């Protein structure tokens, strides 16, 4: 098989190995929490698969590394060794190390490093022996002769096990010239013969120079299923030369020669991402397409003949059916991109364990709704904000055991990650039963930072929302966990990049709940269609605060040419879409058009448009893929009449606006 042929499975192997590592990790953690012995088998199986596949798919370093871990697990599995915290710790680090190795494999970098080497030694030490001495090989004196006698008598059950003397003797014939004499004396009486049993035997004379090992090799599978005697008739020499290495020595050379190509292959496959789809989902799609075809052919009958009242009713029925199937098909196709959030949730048990140990806190992690599915792209991007929220919750939310006791709570704090579908959205919550937000501390900090002029009259929600302001941090001491110069503002920005929102509810002394609301998919957005001259723009619904009709004098021009208008208690900048995108429109006076108040990047602006046409779902088409990137536009969509509408990128517009202001 060509290297390219092998490479296609290399990527599959890496993907399934990464899944295997996740399984190992979660099982190790469960074991750490007193899980049952079946977990050891699960862990072993994962390690075993990685080891077996690694060498086959061209990662021998990984294979030998995993081998050490596997041996250790095997001892645990077979009851030779009791599993304890030290072993779990070591194996968890092994999992990390393997993950890194896979990352390096995908980048085409050398797999081994000092960490791997150190770990390998630790694993070997745990096994009660040093690193395996290099170059030790089983050496056997090579018996060589130019004539042999082989006596071969299969046990009765050998044939049923699939080992065929025909094959064995044919293989022997490849070594030398044979004279085969059967032994027929043990064949039972015909009526009593079980045809699946073997009662024959052979004495085989083999002529031609041959090694004992080659002859014995023919019988390697049946060693325990036959009586076998291999006798040399003429001994030529006792040679003490080393046995040829079992693996073909040419292989490593070939690997070097092909390394460049293999690397290119790996890089190419690392970039292309794929989704695994369950057969059920595909079957569902095929069904739907089938129904669509039926409906279509039914509708086809209306091409001819007059349409009377009865046929009209049928036509309407058919169109309704078409609409339903199209919607279902759309949902199903979207469903292909949907994956359970479990893959994101599963990284947290380990993280929570590590962080809480570091801080000396006791934390119980609860996962709810792990099977909730969301779009693969959203899934890939939701991890970082969640990591931050979880870190924050353990670091700032949950208290030390003594403090918890003092406030009448149990020593162990509970951190809950939950996911659920609500309407067309995914809601992910990170909640803790810790101290909750401290209103006074937040207000004091916000005053100090100049974020607010006074805390008087601010609602609790408004105060809580302050923590999402850029540069806000209330921790008295910046720990190395949360204090990485990344604040909650980054969480909010990441979430809003996904078209979502993040909010907080908190009760002092009881805990906090961070709620991330995300669209089900990035491929479809709900938006309002706005008209600007002849053009149509889609404004994402999640960004819209309100639409207002303003009087001509409500907008003030400030120095530098910018326009501001008063909205509730703040002054918001005006962005005239016709200016930004250079559209011809007769509506330039503020009182003739509509001001759409939108929010993005934590800031509000007013978008001035001619008017709003209506609400619709828009299937997002990439502008970059089909044309080029345009500032302030996140994509395009096709309207019901076939014309193209551009989708406004609110965050991008806000950035554009602030740059203008600065200029």
């Amino acid at each position, binding site marked *: 098989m060509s290297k390219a042929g092998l490479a296609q499975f290399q990527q599959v192997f890496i993907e399934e190995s990464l899944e295997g590592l996740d399984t190992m990790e979660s099982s190790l953690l469960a074991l750490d929490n007193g899980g049952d012995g079946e977990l050891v088998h699960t862990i072993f199986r994962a390690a075993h698969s990685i080891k077996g596949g690694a060498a086959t798919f061209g990662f021998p370093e990984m294979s030998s590394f995993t081998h050490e871990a596997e041996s250790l697990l095997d001892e645990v599995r077979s009851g030779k060794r009791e599993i304890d915290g030290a072993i779990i710790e070591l194996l968890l680090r092994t999992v990390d190390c393997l993950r890194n190795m896979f990352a390096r494999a995908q980048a085409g970098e050398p797999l081994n490093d000092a960490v791997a080497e150190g770990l390998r030694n630790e694993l070997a030490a745990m096994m009660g022996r040093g690193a395996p001495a290099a170059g030790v090989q089983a050496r056997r004196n090579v018996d060589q002769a130019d004539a042999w006698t082989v006596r071969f008598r299969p046990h009765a059950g050998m*044939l049923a096990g699939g080992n*065929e*003397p025909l094959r064995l003797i044919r293989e022997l014939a490849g070594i030398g010239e044979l004279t*085969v*004499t059967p032994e027929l004396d043990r*064949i039972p*009486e015909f009526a009593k*013969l079980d*045809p699946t049993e*073997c009662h024959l035997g052979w004495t085989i004379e083999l002529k031609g120079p041959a090694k004992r090992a080659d002859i014995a090799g023919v019988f390697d599978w049946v060693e325990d299923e036959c009586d076998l005697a291999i006798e040399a008739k003429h001994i030529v020499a006792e040679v003490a030369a080393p046995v040829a290495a079992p693996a073909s020595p040419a292989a490593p050379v070939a690997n070097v020669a092909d390394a460049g190509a293999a690397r290119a292959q790996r890089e190419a496959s690392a970039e292309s991402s794929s989704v695994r789809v369950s057969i059920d989902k595909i079957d569902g799609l095929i069904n739907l397409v089938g129904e669509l075809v039926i409906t279509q052919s039914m509708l086809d009958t209306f091409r001819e003949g007059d349409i009377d009242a009865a046929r009209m009713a049928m036509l309407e029925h058919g169109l309704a059916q078409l609409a339903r199937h199209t919607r279902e098909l759309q949902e199903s196709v979207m469903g292909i991109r949907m994956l359970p959030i479990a893959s994101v949730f599963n990284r947290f048990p380990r993280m929570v364990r590590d962080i809480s140990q570091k801080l000396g806190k006791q934390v119980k992690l609860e996962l709810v709704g792990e099977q909730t599915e969301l779009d693969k792209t959203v899934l890939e991007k939701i991890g970082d904000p969640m990591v931050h929220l979880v870190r924050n919750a353990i670091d700032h939310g949950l208290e030390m055991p003594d403090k918890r006791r003092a406030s009448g709570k149990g020593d162990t704090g509970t951190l809950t990650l939950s996911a659920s579908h609500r309407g067309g959205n995914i809601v992910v919550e990170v909640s803790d039963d810790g101290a909750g937000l401290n209103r006074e501390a937040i207000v004091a900090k916000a005053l100090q930072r100049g974020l607010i002029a006074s805390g008087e009259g601010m609602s609790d929600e408004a105060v809580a929302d302050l923590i999402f302001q850029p540069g806000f941090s209330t921790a008295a001491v910046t720990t190395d966990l949360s204090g990485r110069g990344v604040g909650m503002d980054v969480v909010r920005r990441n979430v809003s990049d996904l078209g979502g929102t993040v909010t907080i509810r908190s009760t002092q002394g009881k805990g906090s709940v961070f709620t991330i609301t995300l669209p089900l998919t990035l491929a479809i957005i709900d938006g309002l269609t706005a008209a600007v001259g002849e053009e149509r723009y889609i404004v994402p619904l999640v960004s819209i605060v309100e639409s207002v009709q303003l009087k001509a004098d409500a907008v003030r021009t400030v120095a530098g040419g910018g326009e501001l208008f008063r909205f509730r208690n703040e002054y918001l900048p005006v962005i005239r879409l016709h200016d930004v995108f250079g559209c011809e429109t007769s509506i330039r006076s503020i009182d003739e058009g509509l001001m759409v108040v939108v929010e993005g990047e934590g800031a509000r602006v007013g978008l001035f448009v001619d008017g709003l046409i209506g609400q619709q779902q828009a299937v997002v088409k990439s502008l970059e893929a089909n044309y080029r990137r345009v500032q302030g536009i996140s994509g395009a969509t096709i309207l019901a009449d076939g014309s193209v509408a551009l989708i406004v990128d609110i965050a991008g517009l806000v950035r554009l606006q602030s740059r203008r202001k600065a200029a």
Partner: protein
Amino acid sequence: MGSKTNPQRKTGEARVIALPADFRLADLADVKAGLLQALEAPSVELDGAGVERVDTAALQLLLAFRRAASAQGLPASWVGVSETMRDAAGVLGLTQALELPATMPA
């Protein structure tokens, strides 16, 4: 690849046993049953012309059958032997014990 155990039909006095195309271990029970019945016949003709796949177990069955036949004084002769069968018997050193004819008439 369905195995067929061919019906035994009387040809004059002799019973002809046509050995199946797939003449291997998993399908030998049926063949053995046919051969057991054939031991009752006045004479037997074995037809191995249609044998496409054969194994040691099958040839061992034939060996045991021929022994039983000759112990009863029942004439058992070959009316056809496929190349596959001849080759297998040769490898196992059983050509003689099975009394396979040197060349077969068509």
